[in-house]
């Protein structure tokens, strides 16, 4: 018989495996991993099938059942080794439920920096951890009017804040920044359309004949084919990807741009990333409905906020980890950066070339462009220019209109050397 009995000492009784599962899931939840209670049930079942006779078996059974993405692995590993003291060390062999029932790890650093589950916290309230986030996270509770029916706020709309619209973001007071951020997150961003693989019914005979639909229709009216139905490819908006430089030199602008990113994620289904010394994906954090909460989460997730800049490295990371997988293919990519980096310009050019081969359009938003007499000569910026389809400033609210228009695709076709500047 293949089904030999496990050593009796190794197999945990059902009750114990259930309490072990529950305790471990609780420890994971406290460390910030989203583990629903039904996972504990599943883990108890798994441990019945795979008696945890050594730490390796226990580890793999727990990991397969409780982890749901690669990003969770570091936290999971830290909690596992803290709870079961010793991780893979066979000498530790501590499948004992006593260890699992012990208070959650005070140690693992990763566990600390993770945001705790949303439900543990009142909406809009600051997370318990100390934040090192700058201005973006500091908005007060006055954003309460964000439910005003002004979702389609149009740029050209004349408002009492005309002056505000013309002022560079760098000159705004904190209160004004708050107002601008509210407006920026409401900007409607729309990418150009492309043909999708999906079809829709069409009356025009120029489209492809849809035999299936025709027969289905004929079946309803009788057996004879009376009316021909056609299908044409449906149009779909291109994907929108936004990469925002949040290094020190960009700080006055980044606080507004991140709001723009947030609006884009919420309304246009954009993918959002920030970078300074390294790249951080913020789509998940920014997808929260509460903008202040979203920005606070974003600041937590990107610990190098307001640090130095490594543009080439960040773009390389983006292309390798996200762009090539499909995020950037055929997409409109918007980069918000002043192009000041401590890197070899040749590196920037090489990475921009890779991005260029994936993306449909690349739009570079550089607030320094508004300065009188500015020429994109600084190393990184000059290297990136040949790969950009549009180069706009976006330094004040009115200039954001240029960004929106460049995303729609009515910008100056920079690369074709047409136009006057």
């Amino acid at each position, binding site marked *: 018989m293949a089904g030999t009995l496990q050593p009796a000492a190794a197999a945990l009784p059902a009750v114990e495996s259930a309490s072990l599962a529950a305790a471990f899931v609780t420890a994971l939840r406290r460390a910030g991993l989203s583990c629903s209670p039904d996972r504990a049930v599943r883990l108890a*079942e798994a441990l019945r*099938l795979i008696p945890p006779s050594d730490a390796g078996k226990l580890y793999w059974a727990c*990991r*397969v059942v409780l982890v749901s*993405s690669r990003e969770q692995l570091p936290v999971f590993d830290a909690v596992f080794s803290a709870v079961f003291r010793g991780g893979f060390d066979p000498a530790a062999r501590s499948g004992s439920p006593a260890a699992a029932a012990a208070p959650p790890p005070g140690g693992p650093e990763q566990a600390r920096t993770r945001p705790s589950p949303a439900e543990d916290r009142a909406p809009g309230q600051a997370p318990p951890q100390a934040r090192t986030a700058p201005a973006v996270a500091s908005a007060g509770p006055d954003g309460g009017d964000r439910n005003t029916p002004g979702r389609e706020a149009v740029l050209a709309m004349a408002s009492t804040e005309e002056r505000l619209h013309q002022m560079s973001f760098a000159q705004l007071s904190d209160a004004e920044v708050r107002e601008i951020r509210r407006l920026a997150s409401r900007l409607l961003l729309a990418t150009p359309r492309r043909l999708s693989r999906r079809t829709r019914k069409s009356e025009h005979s120029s489209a492809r004949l849809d035999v299936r639909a025709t027969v289905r229709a004929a079946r309803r009216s009788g*057996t004879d084919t009376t009316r021909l139905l056609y299908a044409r490819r449906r149009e779909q908006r291109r994907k929108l990807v936004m990469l925002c430089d949040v290094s020190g030199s960009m700080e006055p602008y980044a606080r507004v741009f991140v709001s723009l990113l947030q609006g884009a994620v919420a309304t246009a289904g954009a993918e959002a990333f920030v970078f300074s010394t390294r790249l951080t994906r913020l789509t998940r954090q920014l997808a929260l409905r509460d903008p202040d909460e979203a920005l606070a989460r974003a600041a937590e997730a990107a610990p190098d906020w307001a640090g130095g800049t490594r543009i080439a490295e960040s773009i390389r990371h983006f292309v390798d980890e996200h762009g090539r*997988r499909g995020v950037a293919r055929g997409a409109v990519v918007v980069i918000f950066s002043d192009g000041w980096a401590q890197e070899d310009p040749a590196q920037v050019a090489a990475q921009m070339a890779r991005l260029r081969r994936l993306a449909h359009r690349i739009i570079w938003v550089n607030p320094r462009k508004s300065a009188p007499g500015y020429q994109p000569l600084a190393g990184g910026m000059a290297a990136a220019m040949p790969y950009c389809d549009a180069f706009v400033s976006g330094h004040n609210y009115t200039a954001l209109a240029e960004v929106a228009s460049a995303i729609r695709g009515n910008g100056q076709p920079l690369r074709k050397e047409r136009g006057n500047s």
Partner: protein
Amino acid sequence: MTTAARTGAEEDVQRRIPDVAALISALDRNDYLADVGLATALFLAVRLPQPILLEGEAGVGKTEAAKALAQLLDTPLYRLQCYEGIDAGEALYEWNHQRQLLGIRLAEVRDASVTETDLYSPEYLLRRPLLQAIEHPGPRPAVLLLDEIDRADAEFEAFTFELLAEAAVTIPELGTIRATHPPIVILTSNRTRDLHDALTRRCLYHWIDYPGPERIAEIVRRRVPASSGQLALQAAAVITKLRTLDLAKAPGISEAIDWVSALAVLGIGQIDATTAEQTLGAVVKNRDDLELVGARGAEWLVAGTGG
């Protein structure tokens, strides 16, 4: 123990896969080398049973794992390659309208009468992978592979899961088809988008790590029987070395297999600087990467790999 809250796997399956170690050796007999992590994941997927989501770099053997599992259970593998805009007609079933029309015309010619039930009989049904997997008569459940689920639309993802949870399909003209042996479901994803929480909640998850050189060599030996063990080891060492470079497209296991096959066809028994340079196109498939490797030189590549 047999009276668990849930039914668990069928007895026949339980007998074939009694524990993780048995699964590893059974996969091994089917020329698939699984480490204990992957084997645990597949074991739980079969025995709980629960759908499993496999992720990992391209070419680490996600699809192969499903094939090997189907082979060792001696059961068919139904594979659904997902893509943007895939719908129920392509995934589940569709009526063969052309044949139905033809049937009507034939009946007219022969002066036979055709009723609607004739036209909507199972012979006019085009069965797509999801329906095939659910209809599978046994004796053991089929393996259903939903490849690259992240390419399909989110709505399709939800639809599929609803269907698999029910393990039944209702076709208005035919009635409800209930699975006698609900399929073992394996999903793969390339992480082009976040999968829906509802999906990840229902699935087991395993990230397949890139294997070390010894394991690559072992896989290559299995897949290219014509090659010598020495050659496989050497190729694995070179590929592991290449992966330390910052390549745009790092070579994977499939490249190792291609390369050793190419060398075997060319009758080359050992990799040296010259042969490596000549056949590099089987491994490095990007101009920038070729330049990067070229800058290091073929000598560096084969140094210390036993060549």
